[in-house]
């Protein structure tokens, strides 16, 4: 069984289930000047919310892998998303959105890679839902 070969050092992945747990990482992120925030047009991070209210905070550059998210965040004022840097996906559950975020990291890490690109592990049980999400997100 292969392990995931890529390291996730660049990915700041925070789970915040509403009203129950605030992880330390999230608090630190809001105050520590080293990390960017989610506010404003030049924010380093964006929030992706799943249908079951999990929030995934990922780097904006990574999220722009998705053509759909790119349109939503940069479209001319049609979407409120480009002001608040938050996107909600009412049809994508968290177990799928999590895989999508991991794909963003994988894609960015190995684009223009000079080495052989390792496999991206996908659980076969999630594959079809992930395919539909990927088709919608255009990534």
């Amino acid at each position, binding site marked *: 069984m292969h392990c995931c070969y890529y390291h996730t050092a660049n990915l700041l992945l925070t789970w915040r289930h509403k009203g129950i747990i605030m992880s330390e990482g999230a608090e630190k992120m809001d105050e520590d000047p080293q990390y960017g925030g989610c506010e404003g047009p030049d924010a380093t991070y964006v929030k992706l919310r799943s249908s079951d209210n999990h929030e995934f905070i990922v780097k904006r550059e990574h999220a722009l892998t998705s053509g759909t998210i790119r349109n939503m965040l940069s479209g001319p004022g049609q979407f409120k998303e480009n002001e608040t840097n938050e996107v*909600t996906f009412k049809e994508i559950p968290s177990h799928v959105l999590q895989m999508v975020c991991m794909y963003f990291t994988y894609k960015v890490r*190995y684009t223009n890679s000079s080495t052989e690109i390792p496999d991206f592990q996908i659980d076969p049980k999630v*594959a079809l839902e992930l395919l539909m999400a990927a088709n919608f997100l255009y990534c």
Partner: protein
Amino acid sequence: MSYRVVTGLCYFNFNLCCHQHCIGVWRCSTMEHDEERQRWMFAEHDERCENGENCVEPMNAKSPKLHRRVGHVAVKYKNFVVVWGGYEDDEQYDNNAYTREPYYHPADEVMLYDCEYEVWHGVRIHGDPPPRLCGATAGVIGDRMLLFGGFMEDRQLGTSNVRTVYELDLNKMAWKQIWADGVPPLACDKLVSWCYEGKFYLFGGFGPWPDDPGYYRDVRLAAHPGAMREDRCWNDQLVRLADGRWEWPETRGDRPTPRAAHAAALVGSRAYIFGGRLGNRLNDFYCLDLETMVWTKLEPSDPAAPVPAARSWHSLTALDDHGRLLLYGGFDALSQPLADPWIWSPSGQRWSPCTWLSEPPIRMWHAATPGEAGEVVLFGGLASSVLLDQPTYASGSVFLRETPKSLIRLCLDVLDANRETSVPLVWFTPSPLADGIIARLTACGSKPVV
């Protein structure tokens, strides 16, 4: 704020209509354009088609019919790659002995490869096909594929070189012969071509001496020392087909020597040519600016830097619009097949070995085209020396990637690897995504049982 899912895709029904015989039920397959995703794909539906001539069948990706071919052509058309022609060895049992004879692939069918869904289709073509050929060259202008040159071998007609242009209409899937005015190119094979601004350019080749040398005074011809008149020669012709007329443009600068089995790639308005054979195998590298028609010999900026070995029967493919090129494989000066990919970087003006694959396979006389973004695909060719009695043919396509596959393709791979559990779920997926999945899952030849 939420984002509403937009369902319902726009379809643009195309003229291509094909039959697919399946379990006694006539099925029609059309090439449809998905407006939202900007791609073409085959979709099945149950209506009977009026035009009963074409036939489309999904092909097993491992089918020898696809990969056992040498000297074929492969061109990129929209999100497909069109593969045609070439030959392979066929073992015949005749008079109590086994002989190996070349078997040329039929000229009235093409293999279409869908780069995104990774599915092959065999398409039968009507019209006037060219003879079965190897060593021809092809290019795409608009919705037409132009084919020139090549070598044919026929039991009755003998061997000869083809000197006419054939056009394949990729909408109607029909062959047509093109009659052009002006002085035609020399009959030859193992030449290269590219298409620029609606013109089909040809360069080099190996073929018989011209019967009418007076027309070809500006073309240099070269042969082995001591060659007889009946032998063949290399040429350095540069000719283009424009508006039904052959033109012989004048060029300046460092003109390359005659050669054949070289490789060319077009980036923007510049055509790059590498290596080939003129008696010996070459590794010189030229660029022709198609606006000014000036040849430039490209040397790496650092003379001590490694360069690819001299070779013929290799491939050169453009990687992007900035002039990066991928060189793969071929046959070297010691008659050994090669497996080394190289990348030309225009900014650094140098060749560097390509490390995208940890163990690149040997390939010679294959065909390479760009696949999806950041990907180059090699089809067919030999995985051993051509001089062996029984050369090894390629057993599959080779993919060279600089960028990971899209998530859609990765998911399709997983569904493909887990067919038994995937198939029932597909019926809950909206079309045309379901059509793509079904095409992929049925590509092994067996239809899923509903």
